[in-house]
């Protein structure tokens, strides 16, 4: 499994986590290149269907980054994202899917370091877990 490079799909909120990722980049912080970032306007705008589609199509993990609770640009989008994550976790657990492959984290525009560390941690965690089984199952 040494040559396994996880493919991670990241949904980053425009106002906080995306700016945090930008800061990590402009500050030349090093972190694994395993995440494909998608900028969204709010973590609350990420419907579970996009998370599930990524996983079923063979992504090894999905990351959602939003503003810290209380700091949402749209006041309450991240609180709604949090509830949706609770629901998604419950459903994934109920059908025996690995909900540790979906991470929600609050990372502000000032937290470039936290962004780089989180992606490093997520990549290491998925490397330890191995590839998603859905990569092998073409008939999903």
């Amino acid at each position, binding site marked *: 499994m040494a040559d396994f490079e996880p493919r991670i799909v990241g949904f980053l909120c425009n106002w906080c986590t995306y700016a945090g990722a930008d800061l990590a980049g402009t500050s030349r912080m090093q972190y694994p290149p395993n995440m494909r970032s998608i900028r969204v306007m709010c973590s609350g705008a990420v*419907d*579970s*269907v996009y998370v*599930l*589609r990524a996983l*079923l*199509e*063979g992504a090894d993990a999905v990351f959602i980054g*939003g503003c810290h*609770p*209380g700091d949402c640009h749209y006041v*309450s989008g*991240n*609180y*709604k994202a*949090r*509830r*949706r*994550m*609770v*629901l*998604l976790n*419950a*459903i994934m*657990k*109920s*059908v*025996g*899917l690995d909900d540790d492959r979906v*991470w*929600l*984290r*609050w990372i502000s525009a000032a937290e470039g370091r936290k962004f780089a560390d*989180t992606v490093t*941690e997520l990549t290491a965690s998925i490397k330890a877990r191995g590839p*998603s*089984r*859905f990569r092998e*199952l*073409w*008939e*999903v």
Partner: protein
Amino acid sequence: MKGILKVTGRNPEQALRDLFAGWLRADRLSALLVPAWSKSGAATLALIADPEKMAETSPLLPAMAVNAASVVHQLARSGAIGQRVGLLLRPCELRGVVELIKLRQVLPDNLVMIGIDCAGTYKAAGFRGIRKDAADFANKHVRNQTALTGNSNFRLACQVCEYPRPLVFDLALGWLGLNPDKELWLEAATDKVKALLDGVKLVEGEEPKPRLKALAAFAEQRQQAAAGRIAELDKVMMGADNLVRYFADCLNCHNCMRVCPVCYCHECFFDSATFERDIAEQVRIAQRKGLTRMPSETLLFHLTRMNHMMTSCVQCGICEDSCPAGVGLTILFKKVARNAQAEFDYVAGRSLDEPLPLTTFREDEFQTIGEG
């Protein structure tokens, strides 16, 4: 107002028909939705406006063709302005209507929700032949109560249903734990039904103890049955490989969504342009994987439907009845709905006041989520 409604002539169905016909005759209701036998012999639903036609109805009919909440959705999308319409609903149908009200899909203002006990239903599709003996079929069903909890001919959802009585209602009617040849339970919960009960002879009082005991035993037995079925399901459904196999026969027809009482969108997200892939994209996916299943994204449809609807699922099982491929949705949805609703301390259809879990939040909840 609550108490015992006396039944004469060993005919509880007739007692209910008389009660309902009186409301239509006195113009207290413009129409009433009731289970009925059609002339062709089908067990179905009828919207009755003429009290003389009440003879064709079967208020205690233990057969379910559709979840009546879907019919109510069709009826009351834009409100029944100026017309008061009564709905005789089983507990699961009532819970569906409650969810639709909270989803702003049904305007309840002129609807009178009349709930009635249900011990289980048969698939309506297998019911045609029974018409000839219909006169007393439902009465016999409510009379012989010892055989009801473990009846393996009921629809699977009914065999594991722990809600034999209505939870939210304007008026509730009950027969479980009573001798329905002599008496029925009647309970008014809102002012809407005051006029309906004008002149109705009722022996007022608290709910009889034997009835409460019977209902509790019923729920317990059904919960055990559900636990057993869920344990069986887990053996064949859990995990990526099993899950793919479990849904392998899905045709992608989306019947389960169309008959679902709480799947309310006029256009399903899965019928939208988001899921229209052009051939180049489809081929690109095949190239990436080497091969790809067509029709594609059937499992995605089911998992997403769970994410969109699970907090409102009333576990009526009509999805499984409608599945041409025989995918076992009933117990799966029961399990997932329970787990999902438990996270938010929510039960679909339990209350009109509890907000839908995904329409609300608290700042001080789920604080470990997002913190790593």
